[in-house]
């Protein structure tokens, strides 16, 4: 069964304190791993797509990496405006069905 597990569920950081969020997945024939940011009461905002192990992508203070079993979202010197829920998602391995999401990591950055 396809599964996406994110950890930790919640993370509280001081401003400037770097850390990483984890997304582990079990799906055969990976056709992309997607990271989204979601602010309270709003739709998910696309951040990155990673397609193959070893791939890395960066955007401002965020850097996403991918291995054969997991992805990391590294946050360098976070600011309070980085506070949000970060969602990881992968396509199902069978059938013509799009994304299955992890439960997300709720990040709080304290000034």
């Amino acid at each position, binding site marked *: 069964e396809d599964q996406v597990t994110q950890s930790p569920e919640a993370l509280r950081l001081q401003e400037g304190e770097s850390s990483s969020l984890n997304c582990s997945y079990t799906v055969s024939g990976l*056709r*992309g791993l*997607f990271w*989204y940011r979601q602010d309270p*009461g*709003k*739709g*998910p*905002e*696309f951040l990155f*797509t990673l*397609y193959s192990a070893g791939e890395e992508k960066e955007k401002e203070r965020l850097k996403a990496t991918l291995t054969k079993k997991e992805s990391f979202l590294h946050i360098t010197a976070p600011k309070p405006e980085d506070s949000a829920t970060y*969602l990881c*998602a992968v*396509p199902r391995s069978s059938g*013509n*069905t*799009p*994304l299955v*999401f*992890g*439960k*997300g990591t709720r990040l709080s950055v304290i000034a």
Partner: protein
Amino acid sequence: DTEVTQTPKHLVMGMTNKKSLKCEQHMGHRAMYWYKQKAKKPPELMFVYSYEKLSINESVPSRFSPECPNSSLLNLHLHALQPEDSALYLCASSQLWEHGNTIYFGEGSWLTVV
């Protein structure tokens, strides 16, 4: 421009009402989606349209009725809903899903059923 526009942003309806949620995209995407999201939960897929035809229905109750009038528009018709249907309803679009393309979401419509 990666914009999916949803209206209304907020909707309160009674259990006997009929209402509709609307979604529009002008990115030339041929796949459109409805997701439902409850508080502190991830989005859950409801329906997928490919080339304006319903391709996936995730066993959604018939009180939710999707419609895709053309390649840019997607509606969700609501009738005889229950209070537990209160949630954030997200519309999304992408190029054809078979290629693992990125799905872009709208801001959502907050639905409260009273």
